[in-house]
């Protein structure tokens, strides 16, 4: 008992149980089995098995960090890693036993014992507190009966269904296959393998932490890059496909999976590169900051030039499928930059941004469609309608802003949320059906034509999105440093004081909503041209929420942050399509983790990092 009371032991226990719960949960929702479908290295490890390894080793790594701070010796740290590994596997092992034919009786036994154990525990506690004997016996009996009823009903359900699948449908054969490393037939061997792997991973995590910093960094780089390339093998293959001949490709990949030798080579090379970076990266950075300002600018300029060239050549480098993803990302970057004017700069929480997107899309659809709903017979081209879509979205932004000008904070959010819903309902309504097609939407939207060529591939549409994003980026950087931007920031900080500075807050807010809507309209129009059809169910509240999330995850009021946010929140789910619903689980988990661990976003704007540092300072000040 003394051991359990020590801080270190509790840390290890908590981390082990946490990673155990993670494995159990991901298994029970079916994530492990689904992830097993994607192999990382051919015949070596799958993404599902990676989860089984990653949880204990990450927990072991973190445990080692805490133990070192708690002053533990190396031997204790490794045993901490082992315990974490054991605890990680334990819940899964118990579930495996309960689920098997031979050891089902354990479940029955547990269910029968639980009421007695729990009741006795509490009776013991009451006894320790010096309660009356009759009270102790009475509460013991009551607890046994109460808990007994619950466990009995559970037992009954299992009895009827025959196995755990009645309650946990994803505890399937596939799951058993993954967690026993394909040894379903010999359960005990499978369980031992799982335990060994988990113990090893936990210990490996803690040993990794104890390595000197340079090899540790190098190994982490190597592992990270190899696993990423493996996990996104399909994507990497698509990129290589554009530039490498088929035979070489076949030697690297077996279908979409990395072969063993190339994987090993990649690991060695990336570890070596990581090693060099860890050794000399610091010096390189130091050398860079010691350069004369003119030279430094030259190096920066060169970097920018390379980046620009990459952006321009991107479609040729990544091929069609990924270009399509890039266009989607670009559409969301456009919307992110737009919404950021309202949220990031002016502090107006607009949850109805989809309105502008829908207006832009429908304007383009109706004005250019050559189908039955496009009565204009294709007189207008994409290029002529883009400004119209922009203006229409601005009008929509303006109209919806007028009634909510006096609202603040949460009330504004709710009202704008309502507007978004209204647009969705209008789009699907019978009332507007003759105009915009109701649930059938508008079809046959022609692709843009540029200098006689039809831009029908994502590789070509990419340039439209790129151009629009760059223009928006330029405008929003200019706005950020302008008088107009300042007035928005003042309103965001304190509306009353802003008024006292002589700012016409109503006018400034109208301007923010209107400008913010503009890029939404353009994004919608590009979307409509890309897809070729426009349906009402493309315009749900999830668009608004996606745009909001990418701003927050990337870094509120930070332009580069918004681009990164769009890549992560829009791009990654596109690449994980085969995992269907689990994408949203991961998406949600990412949001929660981000808000806890890095509330300022990936690339925080100066302003927000100021604020967070100020918060830390304030905390330190109050702690004194």
């Amino acid at each position, binding site marked *: 008992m003394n051991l359990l009371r020590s801080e270190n032991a509790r840390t290890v226990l908590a981390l082990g149980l946490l990673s155990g719960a993670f494995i159990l949960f991901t298994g029970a929702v079916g994530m492990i089995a689904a992830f097993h479908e994607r192999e990382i290295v051919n015949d070596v490890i799958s993404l599902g098995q990676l989860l089984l390894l990653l949880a204990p080793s990450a927990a072991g790594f973190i445990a080692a960090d805490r133990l070192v701070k708690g002053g533990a010796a190396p031997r204790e740290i490794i045993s901490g890693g082992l315990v974490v590994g054991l605890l990680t596997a334990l819940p899964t092992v118990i579930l495996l036993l309960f689920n098997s034919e031979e050891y089902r009786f354990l479940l029955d036994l547990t269910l029968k014992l639980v009421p007695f154990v729990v009741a006795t525990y509490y009776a013991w506690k009451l006894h320790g507190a010096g309660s009356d004997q009759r009270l102790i016996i009475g509460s013991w009996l009551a607890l046994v009966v109460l808990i007994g009823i619950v466990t009995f009903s559970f037992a009954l359900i299992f009895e009827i269904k025959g196995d755990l699948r009645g309650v946990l449908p994803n505890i399937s054969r596939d799951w058993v296959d993954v967690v026993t490393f394909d040894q379903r037939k010999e359960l005990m061997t499978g369980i031992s393998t799982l335990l060994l792997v988990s113990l090893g991973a936990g210990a490996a995590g803690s040993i990794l932490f104890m390595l000197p910093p340079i090899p540790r960094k190098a190994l982490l780089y190597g592992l990270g890059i190899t696993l990423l390339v493996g996990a996104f093998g399909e994507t990497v293959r698509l990129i290589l496909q554009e530039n490498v001949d088929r035979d070489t490709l076949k030697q690297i990949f077996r279908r979409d999976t990395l072969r063993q030798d190339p994987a090993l080579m990649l690991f060695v090379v990336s570890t070596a590169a990581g090693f060099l970076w860890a050794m000399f990266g610091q010096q390189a950075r130091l050398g860079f900051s010691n350069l004369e300002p003119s030279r430094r600018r030259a190096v920066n300029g060169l970097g920018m030039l390379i980046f620009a060239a990459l952006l321009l050549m991107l479609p040729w480098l990544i091929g069609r499928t990924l270009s399509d993803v890039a266009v989607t990302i670009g559409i969301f970057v456009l919307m992110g930059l737009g919404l950021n004017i309202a949220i990031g700069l002016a502090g107006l929480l607009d949850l109805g941004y989809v309105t502008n997107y829908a207006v832009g899309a429908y304007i383009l659809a109706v004005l250019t469609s050559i189908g039955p709903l496009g009565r204009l017979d294709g007189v207008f081209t994409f290029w002529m309608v883009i400004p119209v879509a922009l203006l229409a979205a601005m009008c929509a932004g303006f109209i919806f802003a007028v009634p909510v000008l006096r609202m603040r904070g949460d009330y504004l959010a709710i009202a704008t949320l309502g507007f978004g819903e209204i647009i969705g309902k209008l789009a699907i309504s019978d009332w507007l059906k003759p105009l915009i097609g109701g649930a059938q939407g508008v079809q046959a939207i022609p692709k843009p034509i540029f200098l006689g060529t039809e831009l029908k591939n994502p590789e070509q549409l990419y340039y439209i999105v790129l151009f629009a994003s760059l223009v928006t980026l330029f405008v929003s950087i200019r706005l950020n440093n302008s*008088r107009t931007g*300042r*007035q928005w*920031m*003042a309103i965001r*900080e*304190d509306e*009353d*004081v*802003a*008024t*006292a*500075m*002589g*700012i*016409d*807050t109503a006018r400034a807010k109208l301007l923010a909503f209107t400008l913010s809507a503009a890029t939404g309209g353009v994004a919608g129009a590009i979307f409509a041209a890309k897809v070729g059809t426009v349906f009402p169910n493309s315009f749900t509240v999830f668009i608004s929420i996606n745009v909001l999330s990418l701003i927050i995850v990337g870094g509120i009021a930070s332009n580069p942050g918004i681009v990164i946010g769009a890549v992560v929140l829009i791009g990654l789910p596109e690449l994980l399509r085969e995992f269907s619903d689990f994408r949203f689980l991961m998406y949600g988990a990412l949001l929660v983790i981000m808000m806890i661990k890095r509330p300022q976003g990936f690339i925080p704007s100066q*302003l*927000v990092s*100021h*604020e967070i540092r*100020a918060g830390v*300072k304030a905390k330190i000040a109050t702690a004194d």
Partner: protein
Amino acid sequence: MALLQVNEIHTYYGNIHALKGVSFEVDSGEIIALIGSNGAGKTTTLRTISGLMAPREGSILYDGEDISASRAYTLVAKGISMVPEGRGVFAKLTVEENLDMGAYTRRDGGIKADLASAYELFPRLEERKKQVAGTLSGGEQQMLAIARALMARPRLLLLDEPSMGLAPVLVDGVFDTVQRIANEGVTILLVEQNAHMALQIADRGYVLQSGEVAISDTAANLRVNETVQRTYLGID
């Protein structure tokens, strides 16, 4: 003629009758103190003058013009600046950005010079001009709020409880500053709970009591007025 003339204003919060016919005058170059206990209507009076609230009855004449229906933001350009209660600095903007915001309505070339004179008045702010305002101490934030209000080149400065929440040592400094600003020719309307300090620098004072002016006199007379001494100065 008075620079500011408040005639019988009635202001309501919803159904609550907060100001029940308040009248007073502020002459050019004066320091006027509005004193009174919590809830007497001091801040409401300031908010009404500055246009953040509209009086239901009565008029407010500024330089002969009725401003009782004017929107708050239009008054800054007319020369009325306010230092809001609780300082109200833009916590996430730097000191210099805060000062720039003060000159928001101005488009003349004198902003740089005024920034220099603000730093002259408050050297402390110059030391911290790149620092985020939220990290300043209470006293520094008060300086910043006052300096920011001055950046609009006001003729009339409304100060709402400048001593609130400050350490006693700093309170003296703030009132010193107010005196110096007045010496530069800025008319000052000061709302204070710290009647003792306010009446030391003011020329005249008005005592507000539950939404009405109870006593009005010169500051020197108010200091020796028995009721004021008992109620607001803590002298028996």
